[in-house]
């Protein structure tokens, strides 16, 4: 018969090693796979449909009302800019948007977005004018 105490200790060691291996595996494999947002470079070189996130460049947007065409620039962390063209209804909170995710493909010098997601500079602070909220 094996000594049950030693056997138990062995299991603790095996368990511990597995746990550490699991953490290491998790940390490395999640890193590249978790984000759907690709860089400007990847978006420009590929022809697949991708998601790109960037900061909306202030004052770069123009909207052609008849054609429902929205055009604007987004900028990444390195200050590189990319022109985005979007056909469709302008999202209601576009004017307040700080950062934008565009879904579509790049060709001929511009990113043609089929969908647009908007991130607003939301803060968990009450509105400036308390009167504005009480319109329920």
């Amino acid at each position, binding site marked *: 018969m094996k000594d049950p105490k030693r056997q138990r200790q062995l299991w603790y060691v095996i368990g511990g090693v597995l746990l550490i291996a699991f*953490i290491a595996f998790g940390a490395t494999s*999640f890193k590249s796979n978790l984000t759907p947002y690709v860089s400007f470079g990847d978006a420009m070189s590929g022809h697949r449909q991708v998601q790109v996130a960037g900061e909306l460049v202030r004052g770069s947007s123009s909207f052609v009302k008849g054609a429902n065409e929205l055009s604007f620039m987004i900028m990444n962390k390195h200050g590189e800019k990319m022109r985005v063209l979007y056909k469709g209804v302008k999202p209601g909170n576009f004017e307040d948007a700080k950062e934008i995710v565009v879904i579509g493909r790049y060709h001929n010098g511009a990113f043609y977005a089929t*969908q647009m997601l908007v*991130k*607003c500079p*939301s803060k*968990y602070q*009450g509105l400036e004018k308390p009167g504005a*909220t009480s319109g329920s």
Partner: protein
Amino acid sequence: MSSRRSRGEVLKWILFVWIGVIIWAAFFYAPAAAGFKGQSSRIVFFHVPIAWVATLAFLVSCVASIRYLRTRSMADDVRAEVASSLGLLFAILATVTGSIFARIMWGSYWNWDPRETSITFLLLIYAAYFALRAAVADPERRASLAAVYSILAFVTVPFLVFVVPRIYWSLHPDTIINAQAKIKMGSRMFEVLMGSLVGFSGLFVWLYTVACRIERIRRRRQQEVL
């Protein structure tokens, strides 16, 4: 025994009133936050506590699993199973509330934002826990395999819940306790959120004790049938 039961009864009513007050406060006491579409910021008072309860439940499952491996007592296996199931339930609720918020604020129910991807991993990991349980017939073997799995599963929770949102750029609103460890929230909203966290934690404790009792009875009856 009867005094314990009546104390439980009182606590249940306190919880009931507390949650009622929180729901009222979430809509009428706290103001709507700036920068959010309409009243959509109010979901924070439910979404965040729900996510917190899911994390808490997975922690309880992990602790109960460690205890099971030491004691080999089926009562600990019951605790681990019940906590995991509640964790999964609340994780699903967090996903649903998050998705609704995403539709309103970002314009899409689902776009595989890092937050959405990480919760999907979490759901799959804990769904597999129940698949594992269902696959093993022998109760003791099932209990010990499930315990080991639950401990391993919990290793991923800090990554998926706390690390991922702080590494990747996401559409998700900034976490309330952020990298600078400053609370960025209006005082009324913060009060309601804290109250809601307490309320939801109480709700978890209640659901957990009731579900553990039911599960123990269910297992006992199953044994009697055999």
